[in-house]
């Protein structure tokens, strides 16, 4: 591949190009990087690299291995924030290609780390390099999709970001299958699985690299004209990334995303032990794994459903639904647990997790409504730092409060009640910030050329 093929100029779509080719290109990237959510399938095997069937002296422990995912998520948020403007400048093809190199390279460097039994190489490989691939890959198709679908921006970005949720559904069984396939008396198959996944994901992401196109500057969907009277809280102006984060709207949206993610991510990480402890003796570990799979599925479906719905009811109203329905459901969870109603408990969490995914998928279109299309990808990148913060805050709240409750003598089945009420408090903060959202002041608008 020559350098010129990667240039933004080389990706401008010819007349008659079908815009529905762009969402699968974005999905090819997001389905790949969504593997990150299934990284935990490698945690136990990575603690048995020497002992093969059990942890032997010299093997890494779970705590050390757990840092790989945390480093990757921190680098996801920070690379999205740092490289957002570069992604906007070079266009989707070069940024997707870079993401493919980083993400696949991360697997290969980690494979070397496994071979040499050097954990720092895995931190560097999957954590730092792979994490940068996650961040760049996550934001690279967003502004392109918004430009291709000015009539349905929520649906378009929802489709791509749904891939990030769906990636885990593919990666979890695929990782297990590959490890089983490569397992020998001398290896538990993790090294070979890392190499194979690095190659598979690189090729899959290249489908997106080759397919993605940006619309010509004067392109519009056939028969569509921009509404003469823009809807409330939908701007026709543009705000640059450097100006956007000086506006109160950026920080209100930052808190909105952070609160929505915090409420969901803590539950997602603790779902299996939580349902087993609340319904002690009635939910087996294998059924709990089914619960985790089910809420992951709703996390994925919610991304497409809620983002598409936001095109009709508006972004602000969509988040109002997330926060109000979230408060209602979280406050009902302790009662449902007390009643012993597993189906109602599962249904409540399926809806909650659909809104967690919906929050991620609706935010790019919300940013476009507030700041225009000019540098929306870069602004989205900076907003994703809220995810990094929520990624620490959510699990800490759920785990520490549960432990504090148990240490204070509260039965395990009731140890989550206080956490659920705290989640309601967080959602209330999000609701108030969303309620306070107003159009960006004209002083912040960008007056230069946006082409």
């Amino acid at each position, binding site marked *: 591949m020559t350098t010129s093929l990667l240039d933004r100029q080389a990706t401008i779509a010819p007349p*008659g*190009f*079908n815009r*529905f*080719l762009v969402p*699968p*290109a974005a*999905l*090819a990237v997001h*389905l790949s990087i969504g593997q990150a959510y299934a990284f935990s399938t490698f945690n136990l095997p990575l603690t048995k690299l020497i002992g093969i069937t059990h942890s032997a002296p010299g093997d890494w422990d779970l705590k050390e291995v757990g840092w790989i995912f945390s480093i990757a998520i921190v680098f996801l948020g920070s690379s999205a924030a740092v490289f957002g403007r570069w992604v906007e400048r070079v266009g989707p093809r070069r940024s997707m290609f870079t993401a493919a190199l980083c993400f696949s390279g991360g697997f290969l460097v980690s494979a070397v780390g496994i071979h040499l039994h050097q954990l720092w190489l895995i931190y560097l490989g999957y954590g730092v390099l792979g994490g940068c691939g996650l961040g760049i890959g996550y934001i690279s198709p967003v502004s392109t999709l918004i430009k291709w679908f000015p009539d349905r921006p929520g649906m378009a970005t929802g489709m791509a970001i749904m*891939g990030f949720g*769906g990636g*885990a*559904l*593919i*990666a*979890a*069984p695929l990782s297990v299958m590959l490890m089983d396939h490569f397992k020998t008396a001398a290896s538990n198959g993790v090294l070979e699985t890392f190499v194979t996944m690095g190659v598979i994901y690189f090729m899959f992401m290249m*489908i997106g690299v080759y*397919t993605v196109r940006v619309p010509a500057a004067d392109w519009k969907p056939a028969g569509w004209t921009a509404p003469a009277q823009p809807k409330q809280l939908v701007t026709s102006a543009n705000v640059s990334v450097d100006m956007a984060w000086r506006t109160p709207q950026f920080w209100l949206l930052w808190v909105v995303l952070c609160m929505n993610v915090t409420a969901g991510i803590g539950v997602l990480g603790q779902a299996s032990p939580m349902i087993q402890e609340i319904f002690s003796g009635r*939910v*087996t570990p*294998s*059924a*709990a*794994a*089914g*619960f985790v*799979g*089910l809420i*992951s*599925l709703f996390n*994925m479906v919610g991304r497409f459903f809620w983002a598409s719905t936001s095109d009709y009811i508006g972004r602000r109203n969509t988040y109002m639904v997330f926060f109000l329905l979230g408060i209602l459901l979280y406050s009902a969870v302790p009662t449902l647990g007390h009643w012993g109603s*597993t189906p109602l408990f*599962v249904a409540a969490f399926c809806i909650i997790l659909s809104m967690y995914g919906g929050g991620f998928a609706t935010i790019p279109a919300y940013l476009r409504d507030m700041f225009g299309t000019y540098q929306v990808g870069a602004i989205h990148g900076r907003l994703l730092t809220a995810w990094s913060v929520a990624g620490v805050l959510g699990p800490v709240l759920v785990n520490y409060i549960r432990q504090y409750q148990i240490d204070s003598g509260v039965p395990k089945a009731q140890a989550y009640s206080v956490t659920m009420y705290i989640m309601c408090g967080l959602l209330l903060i999000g609701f108030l910030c969303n309620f306070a959202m107003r159009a960006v002041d004209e002083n912040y608008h960008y007056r230069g050329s946006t082409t």
Partner: protein
Amino acid sequence: MKGRLVILWAVVGIPLLWGVMKTLQNAMKLFQ
């Protein structure tokens, strides 16, 4: 262009459907 569209959607859709199917199989254990 239409053929390309179908192929591309199949390339991303089939692995996704496989993942969804595997997840649903696993989720069934919750109600057994």
